């Protein structure tokens, strides 16, 4: 059943008209950052993590490994514990059992390398946009770095505005800039686009993807929107019944793009159901379809 959901999402994505994705030219982040060193992404390892609130079990025996620089999306119904998992990785909550390691070290050792983006932008309303981004930045060049980060998300001219006058999408861009200015090696995204309208979402997805490609951080996205997960992530993890029910790699299948930076448009979710009758380019896909717990049984290619 989850397979069909993913299929549907992939189909929707493929059928999205191209002009809608290009509504607004996103400033090319790779140009803005030439010369700046690429931060190495952090490896995330979740081992046997369980979490309960009182008697209510939320997560049980979660094992998840994320490679450095990978983009992983966690999907699931609301209340399934996907946000809790993210908050555990962000050290905002503590696991009852099990542990989360970043590059093999405890969470506390990487506090400066991990930044989180929340569903609500959580900008300080009493600080101007640029000061919000400079929040917690050490050193005298905080303002300059904040303005640079703001330019990367295309809002340079709003630096001296109050957050209250920004639109929802602009606030999330500022929140993204605030996270990126710390040069995180792991960026956690807790449904950051959940409250945005469809067009703004697509814009933000493109922005996040292009910044992820430029900066090379590891990204962990929590979303209830399967099509968003497929559009952005290398891997989609489905959480259901307190555990990981599905862990699938997302493949891009367009022959023209093989070996080049991927494009959202050419990707579809590779899951057992669709692999059963693979389109021709699939054979040249750089990522072989991994045998997943559920997928393996049904996969017949």
């Amino acid at each position, binding site marked *: 059943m989850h397979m069909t959901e993913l299929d549907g999402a992939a189909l929707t994505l493929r059928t999205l008209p191209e002009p809608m994705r290009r509504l607004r030219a996103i400033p090319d982040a790779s140009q803005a950052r030439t010369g700046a060193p690429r931060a190495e992404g952090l490896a995330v390892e979740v081992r046997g993590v369980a979490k309960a609130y009182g008697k209510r079990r939320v997560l049980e025996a979660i094992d998840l490994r994320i490679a450095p620089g990978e983009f992983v999306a966690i999907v699931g119904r609301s209340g399934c514990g996907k946000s809790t998992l993210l908050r555990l990785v*962000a*050290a*905002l909550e503590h696991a009852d059992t099990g542990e989360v390691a970043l590059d093999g070290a405890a969470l506390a050792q990487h*506090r*400066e390398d*991990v*930044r*989180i983006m*929340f569903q*609500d932008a*959580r900008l*300080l*309303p*009493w*600080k*101007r946009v640029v000061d919000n981004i400079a*929040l*917690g930045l050490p050193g005298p060049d905080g303002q300059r770095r904040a303005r640079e980060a703001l330019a990367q998300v295309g809002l340079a001219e709003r630096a001296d505005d*109050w*957050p*209250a*006058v920004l639109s929802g999408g602009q606030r999330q861009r500022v929140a993204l800039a*605030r996270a990126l200015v*710390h040069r995180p090696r792991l960026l956690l995204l807790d449904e950051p686009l959940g409250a945005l309208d469809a067009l703004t979402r697509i814009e933000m997805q493109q922005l996040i993807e292009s910044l992820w490609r430029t900066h090379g951080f590891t990204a962990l996205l929590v979303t209830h929107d399967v099509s968003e997960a497929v559009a952005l992530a290398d891997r989609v993890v489905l959480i259901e019944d307190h555990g990981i029910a599905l862990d699938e790699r997302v493949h891009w299948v367009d022959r023209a793009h093989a070996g080049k930076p991927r494009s959202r448009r050419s990707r579809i979710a590779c899951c057992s159901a669709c692999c059963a009758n693979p389109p021709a380019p699939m054979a040249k896909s750089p990522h072989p379809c991994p045998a997943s717990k559920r997928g393996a049984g049904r996969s017949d290619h």
Partner: protein
Amino acid sequence: MKAPRSLRSLPPEGIVQRGLPWVVPVLTLIGWELASTRGWLSTRVLPEPLAVATAFWSLLRSGELWQHVAVSSMRALAGLAVGGGLGLLLGLLTGSSRVLETLLDTSLQMLRNIPALALIPLVILWFGIDETAKLFLVAVGVFFPIYLNTFHGIRSVDKGLIEMARSYGLSGWALWRHVVLPGALPSVLVGLRFSLGLMWVLLIVAETISAQAGIGYLTMNAREFLQTDVVLVGILLYAALGKLADVLAKALERGWLRWHPGYQVQAA
């Protein structure tokens, strides 16, 4: 903001719009002046407005007025500084520490229900009738609004913002300065405005009991000599000072809460 724009675009109607609120006060003044000069109104009840103005002018010229205003203002500000300062401090403490809240808040809430003016007999017994008594009364009165609103302000700072700031590496004083204090500020300023209103009420009562200087002394002294015009000058001075305090508090709000959507109407 709509009204001024329509004033500019429609000048004749604008003058009417702007003048209308003043019609009743001006007519009242004229009626009062007429009633006094015709002898319908005894000067023992109310002096004519012109006499009040003359009394004001002569007090101003002799310098007596400034002296009394200065004495009263100093008392008010000293009481506000002591009471408001303590209220702010205790509010910050109980607002940020559960232990201190449990320890202090119940006691303070009980004390809050005692009207400050009910303390007058006790205050006279403790401090006599000199400056300390007045300072104490004003301080007690302004303490509670500032305490309560500071406490409430700190407790109602968005938990999400605090969580965000912590995960962005802020802690201790930095967290206070950037998140908790600015978040509590709107509420603290509401407390300040309440306190300013109470401050003048308490000062008037305290100065009426006994004083050797100040606006209260001026009016009580004038009462002895049936100088209703000077009494009225005193009353109007209290009104003006109260209004001034409120205007200053509003200016503070506008300055410190520029970020707040509620104060951005004028700027936009």
